[in-house]
């Protein structure tokens, strides 16, 4: 599959990426650049509030990430955002109620918990390409069921009311969550080839 060509209608969009201590910011910015979209990495409340779209990325540990967000009152800001917001990987997990990772209380946007994979029976972290199915919402518009995306994670979210895509690593779990203006994806769309680019483009088009 060829990557998506730059999308003209995105050219003037302001995309803000939340700056904190657990961001895989470069990769997300690169992916947006390939879509022809400029983005700004910031923890400035006003800039985040006024952006057209907000991306909340994340690679790292839940507890220091939450501490950092709380210290800068980014926790309150993120839950109050009204434009479309996309959490990626740890970003999505932090949008749930809590994480088994150091028993961290999280933002509580999605009413579900983050659990640790059983390393007795599975290779943990799950690293690699896995499929997504039971796709719901416009985030997956134009994508086929069982499309492949790239995952790197040790913690996961069970199927819940807010689940908008599922995947399976021995047990089925949430590949993506959605509620009102908030979306979260467990996989890395910025590293998921043409499928990932389509998901990012769909998010920008919300």
């Amino acid at each position, binding site marked *: 599959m060829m990557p998506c060509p730059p999308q003209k209608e995105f050219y003037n969009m302001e995309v803000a990426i939340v700056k904190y201590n657990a961001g895989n910011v470069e990769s997300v910015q690169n992916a947006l650049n390939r879509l022809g979209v400029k983005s700004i990495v910031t923890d400035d409340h006003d800039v985040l509030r006024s952006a057209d779209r907000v991306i909340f990325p994340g*690679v790292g540990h839940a507890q220091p990430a939450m501490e950092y967000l709380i210290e800068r009152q980014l926790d309150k800001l993120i839950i109050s955002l009204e434009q479309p917001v996309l959490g990626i990987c740890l970003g999505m997990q932090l949008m749930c109620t809590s994480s088994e990772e150091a028993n961290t209380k999280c933002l509580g946007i999605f009413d579900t918990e983050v659990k640790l994979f059983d390393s007795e029976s599975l290779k943990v972290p799950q690293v*690699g390409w896995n499929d997504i199915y039971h796709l719901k919402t416009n985030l997956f518009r134009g994508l086929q069921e069982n499309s492949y995306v790239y995952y790197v994670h040790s913690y996961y979210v069970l199927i819940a009311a807010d689940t908008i895509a599922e995947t399976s690593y021995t047990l089925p779990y949430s590949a993506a969550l959605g509620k009102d203006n908030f979306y979260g994806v467990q996989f890395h769309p910025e590293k998921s080839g043409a499928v990932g680019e389509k998901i990012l483009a769909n998010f920008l088009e919300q």
Partner: protein
Amino acid sequence: MLCKRIIPCLDIKDGRTVKGINFENIRDAGDPVELAVIYANEGADELVFLDITATIERRKTLIELVKKIAAAINIPFTVGGGISSSEDVQLLLQNGADKVSVNTAAFKNPELIKELSSAFGSQCIVLAIDTKKEADGEWYVYLNGGRTRTGVRAIDWAQQAVGLGAGEILLTSMNNDGTKSGFAQDITRALATRLPVPVIASGGAGTMEHFRDIFLSGLADAALAASIFHYKEIAIPDLKKYLSAEKIDIRL
């Protein structure tokens, strides 16, 4: 289902792609960024860049290259070669590498693996092992690009390294590398069954059947190859179609 991965490897010297045949007789096979984009578009699941530059300018050139690759491709990539400190790793990850692979420096100082995995997470620390089967039937670890024998068994080192936080093993069989006679199934299988982390098999790919065998019999999580891809002896889309028809979980 989690897929088996196909990983082209690009050996880099002074910013250009090279491939050693049995670690010698290096030939130029093109511009790394251009090749990387081609592989990504063809369906490679991941890429590995192994820097074999020895000059003092090495790090700067490599960082520039990593930046260009990260901007150009939409799949994950690993960078390895001469990595010996947290600072090296931080720079590579900051500039867009998804993972780094460590080899000789980690063997000489196993604590490095612990340091790197706690600082950056196990998921981005790949331990590369060059191994050779000797007359006694055991596989031993070799260092410095295969030039230095250690007398330590590959399985022992791999288990120790995973205990210290290595998130993945990139296992290269020196007996098979460059021979195009197939991957080393026995040692790959031994590691894949005993370790709780993914094992990438490397060395010996010559035909599509070799990939099938290393996944089905060798139980590898991923298979890495270089020259057969660089010299277009096997096209990635054909390989993936073949493996899928052989009932192997592959991203098409």
